[in-house]
């Protein structure tokens, strides 16, 4: 870990929602940080709280019924203590976000150029003319052909991949320091996903923004990220460098996740069809407080201790944090 203070430092984040059926603890005590210029992957299955974490960072959670607690330090400032106007000046400028569904996150009645231009007019006070010029530059940057023409088109005139490029152009228009990308390629076909991932990698080296990449696809994480946070039932269960997490997963959930993911090229090693590792059971309800380890109900190694006492997050190997009582401790870290 770098000695200088991180770009974003999340401490004990709790995001709860008050619903008719009770309190949903969508995020329960998550801490992690993102350094300037790095790509952090946040992985987990639906309902693990990864998207709510992202929304909490940008304070896009309706409060009430939601409630965010803990600390979200962006360059040392706690975002949770800022006023709404102060937060607005950060959103889209210092921190911006890309959503999964490019169709619904673009306004259908405004031209692409207007939508990109609006952000820069708002944050940098550019004139309408300069804003359009910036929009054309951004479209060129994200590899959209004939940008001078496209800038006047409406979102429905673009394909899904193009729309996601426009979303990226919008997000990068004010040169943010942190880009939060929530399943940016999930809705896209695999050849288009490859284009967008290549674009993001390429832009990262040019723009230098840190990326928080939220995805359920371990393949995307392996290709894009330096560090990974694995979430389960609103909690962080494991964190480490991408090599550590993929080659030496220590938490039983991470191990299960790796085993249940089929890998391309499997037919080359095995003659017949092989079984995938299953994680038995279902995710626990977030409406009731979970006593003990959140993964206890599905864990193959579960003991009474796990059911009674939630494991603390501990550094079991250098820069490798795990929340499991039974994760072996590497000699160096002990």
């Amino acid at each position, binding site marked *: 870990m770098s000695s200088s203070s991180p770009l974003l430092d999340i401490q004990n984040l*709790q995001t709860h929602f008050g619903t008719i059926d*009770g*309190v949903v603890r969508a995020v329960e*005590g998550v801490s992690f940080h993102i350094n300037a210029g790095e790509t952090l992957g946040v992985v987990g299955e639906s309902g693990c709280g990864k998207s709510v974490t992202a929304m909490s960072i940008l304070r896009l959670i309706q409060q009430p019924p939601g*409630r965010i607690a803990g600390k979200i330090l962006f360059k040392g400032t706690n975002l949770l203590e800022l006023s709404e106007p102060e937060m607005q000046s950060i959103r889209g400028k210092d921190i911006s976000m890309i959503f999964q569904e490019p169709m619904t996150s673009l306004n259908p009645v405004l031209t692409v150029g207007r939508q990109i231009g609006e952000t820069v007019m708002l944050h940098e006070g550019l004139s309408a003319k300069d804003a359009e010029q910036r929009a054309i530059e951004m479209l060129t940057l994200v590899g959209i052909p004939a940008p001078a023409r496209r800038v006047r088109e409406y979102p429905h005139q673009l394909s899904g991949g193009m729309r996601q490029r426009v979303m990226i152009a919008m997000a990068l228009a004010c040169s943010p320091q942190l880009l939060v990308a929530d399943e940016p390629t999930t809705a896209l076909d695999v050849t288009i996903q490859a284009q967008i991932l290549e674009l993001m990698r390429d832009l990262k080296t040019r723009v230098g923004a840190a990326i928080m990449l939220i995805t359920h696809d371990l393949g995307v994480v392996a290709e894009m990220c330096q560090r990974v946070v694995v979430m389960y039932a609103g909690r962080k269960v494991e964190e480490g460098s991408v090599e550590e997490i993929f080659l030496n997963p220590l938490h039983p959930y991470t191990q299960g996740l790796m085993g249940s993911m089929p890998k391309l090229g499997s037919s080359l090693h095995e003659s017949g069809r092989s079984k995938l590792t299953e994680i038995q059971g279902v995710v626990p309800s977030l409406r009731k407080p979970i006593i003990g380890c959140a993964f206890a109900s599905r864990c193959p190694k579960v003991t009474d201790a796990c059911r009674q006492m939630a494991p*603390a997050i501990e550094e079991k190997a250098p820069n490798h944090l795990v929340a499991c009582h039974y994760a072996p401790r590497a000699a160096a870290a002990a």
Partner: protein
Amino acid sequence: MSTTTLPPDGFNAAPKLADVLPPRKERGRIGMFIYRHPTIAVGGFMVSLFVLMAIFAPLLWTVDPTALAPARRTRPPSAQWWFGTDMLGRDVYSRVVYGARISLIVGFATAIISAVIGLTIGLISGFIRAVDAVVMRVMDGLMSIPSILLAIAMMALTRASVENVIIALVIADVPRVARLVRGVVLTLREQPYVEAAVAAGTRTPMIIWKHILPNTLAPVTVQATFFCASAMISEATLSFIGAGTPPIIPSWGNIMAEGRALWQVKPYIVFFPAIFLSITVLSVNLLGDGLRDALDPRMAKRI
């Protein structure tokens, strides 16, 4: 991986976190229902109040609403005549209470009959392409005539009676239900569970009965409550202009029509039926809104 059973340094528990939101209050079943669906509870309660009032009208300290008493015409509200008397000396309170019967009968009957007919037409034209084109053009034609004009024309051609008011209003409402149901049917037909039923060899009548009909009931019920409310207003309007319920039967529209002439000097004759009509319509609409939110969340967002 080593076969650890117990880590040498023991277990470390995660720090306990406090809840950031107050826990949900414990409520009983009725309390939970009111909390979840406040509009259904309020609307439903008020509608049932009016229904009870209409059914038990004779027991609610009323007198014969048609009894004439020229000697005590146009008395203001008092302890004896709660809502006063009209220009023929009839007790306005009794007339208003009995008038609820007409409003509710017309409202419910119109809603139920037009829902049943509209549902049938909608289901058929949603499923049979050949019928669809013809039926829907007829429905479009009917819908292009303002419903109140259609009703006035109907009433002009027939004898004034409560039944004819209902028939006129049903004719105006049926195309709207049919359109709604047809739209729902066309969406449902594309649903994977309907396609799975086709692939499973289920015959078309059975598909309509088991898969389509139950799933159209929710939107039709919601629509029916709104038709009920609008039918009550239409009935009052028709009666007010003398093209509805025969004047001999007390209905809120009739009472208002009769009180119209004396509006400036004896406003209470118009005021009481008007306030009852408004509150009844409001209650039915509240119930409808609540049902829509509970039964069809998608529709609630759209409107």
